């Protein structure tokens, strides 16, 4: 679905991502792991078009996405969540979600000034998509709650819902279980599986190893910006380079 070849990003002399090639496979849960500073978030930023690669190619469903802006990549069907979700805390959860489907609507200034039929139609569709997405992540009961009042885990789910409202094909999740407790992590993992069951492709960055090992179909391991291993959880777990770089030093890390 997303083919990445020899992707490199240098910041000055420092290669944050160095010559990484991989394939994000359709209908699977693709995970990216690696110690802090391994270049995982840079990798996401490259896919999302936030920063431009120094060299290498990325093709999404056969289309070169390197020259595209972030919003254009999103329109192609690549949605993304962030480690922290910036919601409008004074508005309701539903109000925050309605804009999620904006990219699939075409109403412009003229529609707004005249209150055109198209605008009414677009607003209805956006509202419906927002409700459907909220229902999908299991938060339908929260639609009228103030976004500032919901829990961290609910906020994570709202972030998923925002991504889903864009009608994506591929969803990039940046530490979806960061800052939530173990039981909630299980719930989020179930939600990610549900997304894949509904035909989405997921690519996620995560620090919680037990979650990744049980969830991912395929794992890409980065260290100092380079790919050191790739494969199924079992293969990765058995890889000596991975044990050296990551799993061996796991206990030194501050839990995310």
């Amino acid at each position, binding site marked *: 679905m997303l083919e990445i070849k020899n992707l490199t990003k240098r910041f000055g002399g420092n290669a944050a991502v160095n010559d990484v090639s991989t394939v994000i496979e359709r209908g699977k849960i693709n995970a990216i792991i690696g110690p802090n500073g391994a270049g995982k978030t840079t990798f996401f930023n490259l896919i999302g078009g*936030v920063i431009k690669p120094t060299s290498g190619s990325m093709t999404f469903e056969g289309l070169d996405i390197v020259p595209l802006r972030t*919003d254009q990549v999103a329109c192609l069907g690549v949605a993304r969540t*962030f480690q922290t979700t910036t919601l409008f805390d004074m*508005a309701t959860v539903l109000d925050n979600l309605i*804009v999620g489907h904006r990219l699939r609507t075409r109403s412009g200034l003229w529609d707004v000034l005249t209150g055109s039929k198209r605008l009414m139609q*677009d607003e209805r569709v*956006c509202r419906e998509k927002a409700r459907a997405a909220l229902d999908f992540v299991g938060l339908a009961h929260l639609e*009228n709650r103030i976004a500032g009042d919901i829990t961290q885990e609910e906020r994570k789910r709202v972030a998923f819902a925002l991504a889903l409202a864009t009608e994506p094909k591929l969803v990039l999740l940046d530490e979806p279980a960061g800052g939530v407790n173990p039981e909630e992590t299980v719930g989020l993992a179930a939600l990610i599986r549900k997304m894949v069951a509904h035909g989405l492709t997921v690519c996620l960055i995560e620090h919680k190893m037990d979650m990744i090992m049980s969830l991912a179909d395929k794992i890409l391991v980065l260290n100092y910006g380079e790919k050191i291993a790739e494969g199924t959880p079992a293969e990765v777990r058995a890889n000596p380079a991975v044990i050296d770089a990551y799993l061996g030093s796991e206990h030194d890390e501050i839990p995310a």
Partner: protein
Amino acid sequence: MMFLRLFEGRLGWGLLLLAGLLFPLIVGNDYHLTVMSTAYIFAIATLGLNLITGYTGQFNLAHSGFMALGAYTLGILTVDHQVPFWIAFALSGVVTVALGLPLGWVSLRLRGHYFSIFTLCVGYILFLVIEKWEGLTHGTVGIIGIPAPAAIGPLTFDTPLKLYYLVLAFLVLGVWVMRRIVNSLMGRTFMAIRNGDELAQALGINLMRNKLVAFLLSVLYAGWSGALYAGFVRFLGPDLASAAHSFDMTMYMLVGGLGTLLGPLLGALMVPWLTQYMQFLQEYRFLIFGPLLILLVIFMPHGIVGSWLGWRARRQSVAAKPVAPTVTAAKPEVRRA
């Protein structure tokens, strides 16, 4: 609750309009009418500023510069080139947007404080151009003898009372259009950019295009309010472009509530009256006004209207909680005042 909500929808705006219409009957003196009309003119500009600053989150400090741009376009065209008032008025909007396009495009490449600092400079450059380009703008002498708004059919605008109603009509139009914008998907798009441009962009929102649209609409409000100002005061000096006016309008927004529709309007109408009544304190009035403003920003960071909306939204969400989801879904949306 239901009773209160009535006042926040169309009825509330209707009552405000009625108060505006009846205001001249209550005060019955030209001085008060002039103060109120001037406040309305600045309220129109503040509505515009609120679109880019309050709703889109880009704190623009060149706003008074654009207001002066509209005012000078009208002044120069009517006085030096004898262009009919309303044609000059329309052109003042066109010129403001035409100059706003390149200036906005350059400024909006910057984010956060850098955008504010840059626009502060843009505003100062606009001020300097107006002050120094004597051949075009008459420099510090200013433009004298700007004609009053010309009659539209049977409607003439030759008394303070008639001018008051003209300005009120523009304010009503401005509020109406702004309400459409901010309550629409477009308004939501702007707010998404304010809440976090990284996330907005990831949601497929073209940042530059949307920020630029908000900016241009905002300067259009400034340009036309400037043109009204020129036709109302009938004298123009470069002072109109000074950053002090941008800061005044910012203060109106803060007092009323950034990113609310009613807030900037309320601030723009309330603060001038407060300062009028503190006139006897002369320069010392800021000794009272400054600390008041600081207290407001500390204890009511969302302003009067923003705090009220926040309080109400929380009450509604608490009220909606015990109800089954299907029932709450049928409830009307939370309407932004």
